[in-house]
């Protein structure tokens, strides 16, 4: 085939970049996302992941969390509050470790070498993997919550639909955030061990900055509350935690004096928007940086 015919089939961009300008990048994205879902559904991590989140909801029902009362919360609201707290503890590390293991693992095992020898655009490949992976990490978490809610409907337990909707959006934002971080780590790290180690350290730092380091710094250095709050607002885990807390504790009594800074600066609605937008932005930024790295360096 001549160059002209070849170029007519899949035209290059004016700059001669790797990404085609026609709809083939979107088509590739969709195909790769489907492929990633098909791969993940067969992976052991996905089975464990689904069982863990489904099991949590089953356990919450089994231990009659819907019957217990705390801060005035009862029924499904109580279950959702507990579920969201547990998700905050385990979802980030699950997403980070499974993402870096499977993406960096694929690179190490030669999957990249083969699949990236097919005429798939790098953008379609990278973002397709991100979208496919988002589906497989978010859907089990959502499905467990939805199953619990469905059960509550059958049992005629009142369902707080606004809480259900907000928690769904929070979880999606949190999953996207750590997925983006995981993709960045996977793009830069050249081996599974390094990627997994880096992912664990990132998670640990964010967890430590939830309370331990944050409180320690505040007490020892006598930093201004605004500075400590700025740290907290930069930590997506803390943002999620405070946002979730805000839904059942509108005055943020549990948070102490920091609540004044947060509520004065954001207001309740503003902070809920921050809880959704900030982790999503962090995830997107990290994913974009990861793509930039991925595109400019060795692929396998």
């Amino acid at each position, binding site marked *: *085939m*001549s*160059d002209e015919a*070849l*170029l007519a*089939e*899949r035209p*290059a961009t004016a700059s*001669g*970049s*790797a990404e*085609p300008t026609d709809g*083939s990048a979107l*088509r*590739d994205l969709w*195909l790769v996302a*489907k*492929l990633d879902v*098909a*791969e993940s559904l*067969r*992976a052991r991590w996905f089975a464990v992941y689904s069982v863990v989140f489904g099991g949590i909801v089953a356990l919450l029902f089994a231990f009659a969390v819907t019957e217990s009362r705390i801060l005035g919360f009862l029924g499904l609201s109580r279950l959702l509050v507990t579920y969201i707290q547990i998700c905050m503890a385990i979802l980030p590390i699950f997403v980070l470790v499974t993402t870096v293991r499977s993406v960096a693992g694929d690179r190490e*095992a*030669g*999957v*990249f*070498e*083969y*699949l*990236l*020898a*097919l*005429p*798939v*655009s*790098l953008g379609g490949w990278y973002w397709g993997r991100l979208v496919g992976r988002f589906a497989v990490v978010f859907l089990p978490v959502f499905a467990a919550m939805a199953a619990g809610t469905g059960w509550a409907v059958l049992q005629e337990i009142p369902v707080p639909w606004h809480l259900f909707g907000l928690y769904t959006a929070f979880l999606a934002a949190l999953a996207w955030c750590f997925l983006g971080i995981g993709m960045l780590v996977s793009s830069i790290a050249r081996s599974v061990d390094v990627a997994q180690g880096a992912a664990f350290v990132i998670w640990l730092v964010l967890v430590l900055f939830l309370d331990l380091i944050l409180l320690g710094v505040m007490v020892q250095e006598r930093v201004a509350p605004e500075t400590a709050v700025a740290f907290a607002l930069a930590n997506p885990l803390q943002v999620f935690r405070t946002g979730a807390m805000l839904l059942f504790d509108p005055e943020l009594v549990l948070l102490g004096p920091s609540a004044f800074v947060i509520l004065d600066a954001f207001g309740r609605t503003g902070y809920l928007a921050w809880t959704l937008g900030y982790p999503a932005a962090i995830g997107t930024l990290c994913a974009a940086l990861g793509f930039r790295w991925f595109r*400019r*360096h*060795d*692929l*396998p």
Partner: protein
Amino acid sequence: MIGATAGDVRVSGLSKAFRGTRVLDGVDLAIEPGERVALVGANGAGKTTLIRCLLGQYTHEGDVSLGGLAPRSARSQVLQRVGFVPQLPPPLKMPVPVLLDFASAVCGSPRERMCEVSVRLGLAPDSLGRRPFAKLSGGQKQKLLIAVALGRETDVLILDEPAANLDPDARAVFFELLAERAERTSMLISSHRLDEVAALVHRVVELDRGKVALDDRIADSGSLAVRLACRIELARPEEAAARALRAWGLREEAGGRVFEGTLAGPDRLRFLGTVSRYSALISSLELRQAPREDA
């Protein structure tokens, strides 16, 4: 590149280093359309790195182009016309139909065409149901990867020890498939042993520590699709020899003393290598070019 022809492979001053270690060091190579080149060299000579540069997977110094386009900057356009078979099948967990659907969609080639190639190699993809690719045998994986590479229009084939896991019948079909596109497709066939690929190529390029150590044309190896009628008589029946000859698809007669059948022409050197292990037992050996059997 203006004036370049599809199937042209041009490598100029190609260098690649990993953490300060130079794996390719100023490699120059030109492959004309329709040319079949063996890429040989010891482990670590730089064969895989060169292949990955040709596939646009590595950053590098120097220039690489296929059909006049750089695979790094125009990868989709270039790879649309390149078929690749890796040395080691990737551990894909996806079911076989998902892999075929994906490959046919991104390559823009009907899935049926890939399935036809696979069937010719002796593997009907439909018979595998939804088995994960990773659970197939080595030979089955290799046949599917060859089917994906050859089940579409390509100008360049990059094959990394492609026939290593194939049985003799499948190897013969594989050589026929290569012969069918030999006139219009450039081929780069990598192996760490020249005898594995010598009969398939016109030219041998040997890499040694990242440099081209040898670039030589070899005597015309004849048609890739030629078949050889083979007859071997042993001085006495011997189970080890019989097992080896049966593995080549030869029929056993006269109580294990005579073996007959056909071989793929390009396999003659490999076959003689096998037979040489039992040379003391052989009382007669005949290899004759056979008329091509209709399928």
